[in-house]
């Protein structure tokens, strides 16, 4: 709810961010207030720019400033292999290993029956479209899908759903090896564990 007091409004706006409680929010608000105007200007500008200029790649749903992201545009990558990740942070973690030269698909979430998140609530249909038609994948037919969701119940549910949907198509599907500890998150997994998990993926 909006109040008339700009400080209260700023505090409650900060408090809506993940990981920021009421106390941190008010500390941030007073910090901004006491700093020169340039800080507030820079933050406001950066916030607007990120919403205006960053959108989803029309092919893989990665975050990009263009219509398709730089990975989908790269001519030297293998666009017949798609690594499916839950979010852009996980994509970055895999890119950082330098072990994978295929394309990605970012679901922006995972299927979570317990939280009422189904396939229609994430970017699953865009992926299925790419698998069914080469046109939706920039002209390259997909040969292999690697599911790189975290090894949790939701990550498994997502992977199982996908393998069921892919079954009728002639596409290889594998799941990253569980060198990634159960219950941990990709984003926080170290590089060597992650690259081993990729190379030791198992067929589904």
């Amino acid at each position, binding site marked *: 709810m909006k109040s008339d007091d700009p400080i209260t409004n700023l505090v409650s706006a900060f408090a809506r961010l993940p*990981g920021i409680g009421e106390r941190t929010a008010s500390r941030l608000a007073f910090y901004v207030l006491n700093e020169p105007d340039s800080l507030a200007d820079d933050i406001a500008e950066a916030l607007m720019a990120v919403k205006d200029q960053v959108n989803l790649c029309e092919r893989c749903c990665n975050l990009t400033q263009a219509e398709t992201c730089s990975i989908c545009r790269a001519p030297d990558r293998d666009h017949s292999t798609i690594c499916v990740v839950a979010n852009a942070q996980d994509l970055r973690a895999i890119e950082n290993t330098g072990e994978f030269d295929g394309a990605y698909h970012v679901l922006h979430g995972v299927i979570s*029956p*317990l939280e*009422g998140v189904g396939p229609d609530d994430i970017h699953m249909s865009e992926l299925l479209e790419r698998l069914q038609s080469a046109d939706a994948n920039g002209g390259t037919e997909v040969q292999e899908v690697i599911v790189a969701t975290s090894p*949790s*119940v939701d990550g*498994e549910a997502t992977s199982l759903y996908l393998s*069921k949907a892919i079954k009728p198509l002639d596409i290889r599907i594998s799941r990253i090896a569980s060198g990634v*500890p*159960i219950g941990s998150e990709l984003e926080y997994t170290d590089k060597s564990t992650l690259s081993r998990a990729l190379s030791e993926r198992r067929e589904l």
Partner: protein
Amino acid sequence: MAGKHTSLVFVLRKVEYAERDVIATLFARDRGRFSAIAKNARGSKRRFGGGIQPMRLLRADYTVRTNSDLARLESIDVREDFPGIEGDFDKIAFGSYATEWTRELTVDADPRPDLFDLVGRFYRRLDRADCDPLLLEVALRHLQLQFFRYLGSPPNLDECIRCGTPTESMQKVYALRAGDGIICPDCVRTGEGVGVVFPQTLELLRYFRAPQGRPPDALTNSDALAQARRIIDATASQFLDRRLKSRPTLETSLKDPGELI
């Protein structure tokens, strides 16, 4: 009871909090439902490597604080996992529904070892079951009917809830749309919402109550199955004030989902 504790627990829910923390709703065998924060859970493999995950029997070390409702989860150890559930989408759907069901039908700080063991038996049963949606449903309906019994309000399937006439001697059997159980034709009051219950439905509900031996043919009768589901739902509505979030996924895994309320 402030201080350090160790309990057998099931995770009923987990929510990411702040950068690396997790807040979990736990159901402890000796403590009932409570919430706990796991600091740095998303980074620490040593303390939470086994994973704060639903549908696993865990041993949890935690600290109860005097000034907070939120306990602090120190470490977790997997005592029993159910790979059969995690390897099948339908089983995850049924298991998730049962987990959310447990979360909604239990209350904080009320130790219910009976319900805890019931949930454990359900996971074990689901884990080993063939991947047949009807068999998975038998396990779920049994869990639900047992929950009603332990909570003290099972639908009465054996006699009229008003006059006590045994169902066998009724010419026609009715059920109240609001739940509760069976009534005989003589006890139906004008204007009250009732439905005729098929004999197969009663047979099916009794099988759900004690699923021993070969399943009755009624299990494959879609009308009886739909009606049995409605009666269980009606009873559940006394305990639930909202539709469970896991319900849409469950419906995709049910055989003949039909028109569920």
